[in-house]
């Protein structure tokens, strides 16, 4: 599959800005799928998205400020008022429920999709500015990634057939 960067393959470039368990899915699903369809794929992880490059991910989901998040419960779909979602322990409960559903429905884990992305030669780029801003140590991130800035993304994007900001 993945030819080198000099190939004539179509290409896709993603900016990944969100690092919660739910928002981690769209970029990794698209990246792995595009790579499996022969595209050259690059992902630029910035701000909260950078957490998805941590060696140890501890992803969480919250219903706080997310009225569209309705979980299947007792045959219904139930949302959660902010007042309840803000209470201690409710976030980890929601995360546990989500992870349970993910496993039950045969949906890949983010760890698994990230591994697939690496195997599929997806280019993973962490944002240097985000490292500095949030005082993240380089050695907490995966070893086999690049660290770069906006110009690197722009150069990628210029060549890419698909550009998405997620």
């Amino acid at each position: 599959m993945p030819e080198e960067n000099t190939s004539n393959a179509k290409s896709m470039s993603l900016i990944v800005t969100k690092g919660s368990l739910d928002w981690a899915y769209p970029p990794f699903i698209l990246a792995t799928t595009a790579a499996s369809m022969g595209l050259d794929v690059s992902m630029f992880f910035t701000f909260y998205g950078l957490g998805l490059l941590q060696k140890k991910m501890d992803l969480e989901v919250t219903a706080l400020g997310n009225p569209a998040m309705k979980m299947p419960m007792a045959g219904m779909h139930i949302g959660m008022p902010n007042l309840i979602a803000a209470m201690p322990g409710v976030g980890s409960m929601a995360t546990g429920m989500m992870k349970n559903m993910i496993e039950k429905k045969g949906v890949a884990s983010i760890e698994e999709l990230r591994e697939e992305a690496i195997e599929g030669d997806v280019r993973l780029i962490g944002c240097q500015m985000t490292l500095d801003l949030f005082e993240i140590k380089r050695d907490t991130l995966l070893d086999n990634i690049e660290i770069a800035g906006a110009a690197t993304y722009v150069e990628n994007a210029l060549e890419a057939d698909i550009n998405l900001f997620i």
Partner: protein
Amino acid sequence: MADQQLDAKGLNCPLPILRAKKAIKGMETGATLEIEATDPGAVKDFEAFCRVTGNELLDSNEGDGVYKFLIKKTG
């Protein structure tokens, strides 16, 4: 009978496609792969996958909630 079988039952998007791609990668040109899946989204997705990759979708059918796809490696 296909040259190779892939059981993708119970797997959700995009795993059937990712598994199929891995299987095809290891096959000879001209060889065929039969995939069984339970993800209804796989029907459209294997069509798109084959259009983009140039592999040939020889057959696609459904019975008892199991979708079967037959793909011939062309490239």
